[in-house]
């Protein structure tokens, strides 16, 4: 790939980051989603643990889950909104008439997801330390970085899947986004260990990278992981799901061009 070509691709990727940045700047609702809800969730769950009188170890367990889930939520919603806003504004046709591809779309929106998630992640770490005495940095910066990297790459799997749903079902895909995320709350051990799930579901939980990333990070707070290499499993599964989700997105775009939904979604 020549330098000029590479530069062009980077500009096209940046187009979606720019769009996401403008959406964040101009839509108060989006800003609320990014900042407000994660903090409401953190504070309310933190206070619940205080009310229930659980020990500090349990507080750490739950708050790690809450923060991890917020990262996933923000990362995936930033990716999904880039397409959902185009569908809601009926401008998708004009954007897809430009020489862009699925990679530009997901890379650009993921970059903004990464930016938003990083800020919220750091703020939540500091906040939980001040309010609930959870020292997120105790495990060391490198481990914290690996944990966050795993989360944000897994958020991409969810975000890409929602984008694929958007090309298939239009604006209704945000229901899919909510559903996918709700499944994660249920199955991946955010508020409780996956062992408390019914046996078949606890097996399913280990097919979710988030379960492994949580086990990895909680291991530094005295919780023994089920698998000896949770980080490795987390990244391996994430890579597989990102690949599958990307293929699904490419297929959804191709189908939208074949069936005419790309045009009808803009009418």
């Amino acid at each position: 790939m020549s330098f000029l070509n590479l530069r062009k691709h980077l500009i096209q990727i940046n187009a979606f980051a720019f769009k996401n940045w403008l959406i964040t700047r101009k839509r108060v609702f989006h800003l609320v989603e990014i900042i407000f809800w994660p903090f409401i969730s953190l504070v309310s769950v933190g206070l619940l643990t205080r009310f229930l009188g659980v020990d500090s170890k349990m507080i750490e367990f739950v708050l790690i889950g809450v923060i991890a889930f917020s990262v996933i939520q923000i990362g995936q919603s930033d990716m999904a909104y880039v397409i959902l806003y185009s569908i809601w504004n009926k401008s998708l046709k004009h954007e897809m008439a430009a020489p862009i591809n699925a990679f530009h779309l997901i890379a650009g929106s993921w970059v903004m997801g990464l930016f938003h998630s990083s800020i919220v992640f750091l703020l939540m770490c500091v906040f939980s330390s001040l309010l609930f005495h959870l020292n997120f940095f105790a495990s060391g910066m490198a481990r914290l970085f690996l944990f966050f990297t795993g989360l944000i790459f897994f958020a991409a799997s969810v975000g890409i899947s929602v984008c694929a749903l958007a090309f298939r079902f239009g604006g209704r895909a945000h229901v899919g986004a909510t559903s996918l995320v709700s499944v994660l709350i249920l199955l991946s051990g955010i508020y409780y260990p996956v062992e408390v799930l019914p046996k078949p579901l606890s097996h399913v939980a280990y097919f979710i990278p988030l379960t492994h990333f949580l086990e990895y990070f909680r291991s530094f707070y005295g919780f023994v992981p089920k698998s000896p290499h949770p980080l490795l499993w987390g990244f391996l599964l994430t890579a597989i799901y990102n690949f599958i989700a990307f293929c699904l997105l490419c297929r959804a775009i191709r189908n939208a061009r074949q069936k005419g939904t790309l045009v009808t979604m803009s009418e």
Partner: protein
Amino acid sequence: MEIISLKDIHKTYPPDRGGKPVRALKGIDLEVAKGTIFSIIGPNGAGKTTLISIMTTLLFPDDGTGTVCGFDLRHKAGKIREIVNVTSGNANFTDNFSVAENLNYYGMLYGMAGEARRTKIAGLIEMFHLQAFRDTPFNRLSTGTKQRLALAKSLMNDPKVLFLDEPTVGLDPQISESIRINLKEMNRKEGLTIVLTTHNMDEAEFLSDRISFLQAGKIIAEGNPTELKRKIRWGDVIRIRYNGPSFDPCHLSSLDGVLEVDVNDGLITVRVDDHNKRLDPLTRMVLSEGDLLLQDIELIKPDLEDVFLELAKTPHSN
């Protein structure tokens, strides 16, 4: 030299919620010469938007082959998207982005680098008189200004072919006229090939080097405006009501520009290519008959429906 070539293009939409599949295009053959303005006209549901969507690669054909600027519609769709652009009547953009932000975003989608993009945006804002709306959000623009923004966006990448799907629909006559003049100038000065769909016969005639009539997914006539008028007797109708003895229509048929004459019970109906040119010699000839007394002269411009009714009566080849 053809810049667009389509051969036997078919498109059927899958059934929608228990309905039947819709055959939108049934074997379209089309060639558009470089540097021309080509209009596709037809009633609602004729397949115009489907055809333009296929040429812009927003939609893949089921069957048939085609090239745009030498690139295959299906296998080189990305290449085509780099060198064409498209806009439509009632085009939508992100509603709370300003004019400049929307243009900036589209410039980036076309991979334009910073300085070149900024220069281009400034030029387009000036060209389409959008200076006063530079920072106005899209949802606060009037319909006409939105359409000017859509046209500005469609020139962002200096396209070789510009596709316009009903570009003046819903606009007031003054804005429509200025858009037509803009398009004509771009075609004349820069040699830009323009393919447009329209309901408006006058617009098609004013702009087009060639016109295709599309009906029920088929091209039922094609040619330049003069050829088509001749072929389908499309033209203005002059109705002259008179008092006096019977009148021999042969006198009028020999006049230049007269396509058809009918005389019936004190009413002469003459179809001419252009009433501005033909009314005067026509009335002079009628008056030269001496005994006739003119009562009333009525001018009728045929609308799209008239032309299509005419076309539907007899089979036409391309």
